[in-house]
């Protein structure tokens, strides 16, 4: 307990101590935010200059200013720029939606890719590709709609006057299993060409990123991020348990419903653009929480971590010695072990 005592010899008044604690928190979360922004920008710039052909910084600046040769401009502005921006926006959307769910349900396991929402969107996308022959925007809309419907289904099944996080997670895992099975069944029955299209969609890839995808994704990410930020104080208070929060004046069910809807929208639009990039929404929250210190809200930081994860993984994915792989493969390779680690830690601390 001694370590907790602030000063032993000369006791300053409480005011100073409180301000000091608060300032430490603020400084740390500000420092982390700045660092993450710098990292995100650095990764985005690397994504622009690195590739089949590596450009220099002056080439990049030239292309951005509309100078330089046409080939360089085309590669940087038409091929790599949308890829970097979409990776960035999708990563932020995944990261913020993930921590939104995790905080709301007070459980690190409660990320949307664990509780069935991603699985629902995926199954719908496979159905769209294989059975309906959809692609592009209609396919994305179908995936978004079904992501939302899955969220509502899980919520309806778990609802008993309020959400019990554990019940929601377990029901979500069950629903996810069901949709994954449905997806596999559809894949088995489909023809060769469709399987390829569906597989490409399912792994999550930035390879097909185009400027035309950006406006909807960027707008949704921005609006969703602002809504989640506005709800953040309610969510922080909800973490004290539903009864305590209600006692403090939080409208519990309403806040839960709002966060889930905003989270699903963010997630579904990002998934519709890039495909489900595995584990980003699951990983970002815990990483951000470790960075800013536990017990502090890490909403913005989680979004930035998500962006860094996607861009970083995309750079790795493009530069593997043997062959280029979709970004989702890299995030899965990182995410799987971390999932196991978190489960082991939570089981040990009996938080699951």
């Amino acid at each position, binding site marked *: 307990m001694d370590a907790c005592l602030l000063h032993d010899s000369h006791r300053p008044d409480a005011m100073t101590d409180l301000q000091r604690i608060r300032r430490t928190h603020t400084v740390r979360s500000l420092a982390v935010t700045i660092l993450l922004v710098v990292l995100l920008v650095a990764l985005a710039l690397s994504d622009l200059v690195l590739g089949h052909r590596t450009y220099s910084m002056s080439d990049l600046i030239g292309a951005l200013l509309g100078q330089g040769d046409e080939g360089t401009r085309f590669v940087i502005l038409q091929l790599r720029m949308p890829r970097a921006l979409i990776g960035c926006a999708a990563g932020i959307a995944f990261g913020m939606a993930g921590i939104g769910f995790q905080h709301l349900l007070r459980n690190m396991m409660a990320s949307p890719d664990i509780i069935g929402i991603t699985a629902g969107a995926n199954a719908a996308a496979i159905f769209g590709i294989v059975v309906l022959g959809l692609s592009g925007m209609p396919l994305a809309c179908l995936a978004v709609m079904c992501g939302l419907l899955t969220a509502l289904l899980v919520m309806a099944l778990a609802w008993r006057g309020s959400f019990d996080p554990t019940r929601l997670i377990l029901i979500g895992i069950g629903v996810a299993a069901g949709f994954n099975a449905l997806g596999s069944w559809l894949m088995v029955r489909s023809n060769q060409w469709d399987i390829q299209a569906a597989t490409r969609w399912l792994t999550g890839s930035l390879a097909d990123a185009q400027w035309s995808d950006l406006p909807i994704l960027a707008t949704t990410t921005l609006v969703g991020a602002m809504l989640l930020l506005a709800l953040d104080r309610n969510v922080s208070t909800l973490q*004290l348990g539903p009864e*305590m929060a209600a*006692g403090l004046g939080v409208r519990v069910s309403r806040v839960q419903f709002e966060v889930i809807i905003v989270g699903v929208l963010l997630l579904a639009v990002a998934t519709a653009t890039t495909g489900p990039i595995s584990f980003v929404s699951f990983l970002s929250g815990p990483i951000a929480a470790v960075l800013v210190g*536990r017990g502090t809200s890490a909403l913005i930081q989680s979004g930035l971590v998500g962006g860094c994860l996607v861009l970083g993984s995309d750079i790795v994915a493009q530069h593997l010695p043997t062959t280029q792989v979709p970004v989702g493969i890299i995030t899965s390779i990182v995410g799987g072990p971390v999932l196991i680690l978190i489960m082991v830690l939570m089981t040990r601390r009996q*938080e699951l």
Partner: protein
Amino acid sequence: MTSSPAYDAWSSAHKLTASHLRLTYGGRTVIEDLSLDIPPHTMGSIIGPNGCGKSTFLKAMARILKPASGTVMMDGEPITSMPTRKVATILGLLPQNPSAPAGITIADLVARGRYPHHHFVERWTTKDEKAVERALALTGLTDMAGCPIDRLSGGQRQRAWIALTLAQQTDILLLDEPTTYLDIAYQLEVLDLLSTLNRQEGVTVVMVLHDLNMAARYSDWILAIKDGRRFALGTPDEVMTENLVREVFDIASTVVTDGTTGAPLMTPAPLHSLEAHSGEACNAHVHWDDSAG
């Protein structure tokens, strides 16, 4: 019923009243018909056997459980029609199992009690700072403000939660079994703190308690609930009788006056099954002790 002379400005005090509440929980009626006028600036306890509905009743008083019928009124206005955030500036609740986010410090936890005093994007003010500082001082946690909550002992943790409700700065404080899981020293610590708040700050305290003797010792009034109805309401002396203990808890007991506090003190008589074997068990124990010594 006693009231502290420093706080007899009763007209300005907030009045919480429950009239003819019928409360259901998962389709089952828990409280049939219960009314209670909470006298301002008093400290009161609700007692009764497990499952009698005392916690449910407290939740309804705190507007987090909607009554099937009947109303809870705050200053004559139905509490359900008031903005919930406004209610939270008058009425604080400490539920049985609040959960602290892992790693949160006492200072951060207590600061969350300021929630109802803030609007959409309002910033942290000196007033908030003062309220948190005062809550920490009253609960004796000032020196530990930077300590993570999961490193605290049971009593300190409970004090931190009480500090949160104090930072909320409400005139009325409802607590659901604030001493559960605490050893006798911590029970006294928590109840003494609540008593101090009541006497010195004029906070109206209502708590659900399991320990009848603690209820008798610390309360101005006691409400005994049996089978979803009010069995008795009055001062500890009026309520804590051998008859009530037999009727409500179905056990025989002796009630005497506590020499130190003057409060009624209940000693339960052994149950029949225990009585038959008690002599034997006692002898065996002594014998075992002898051989060990």
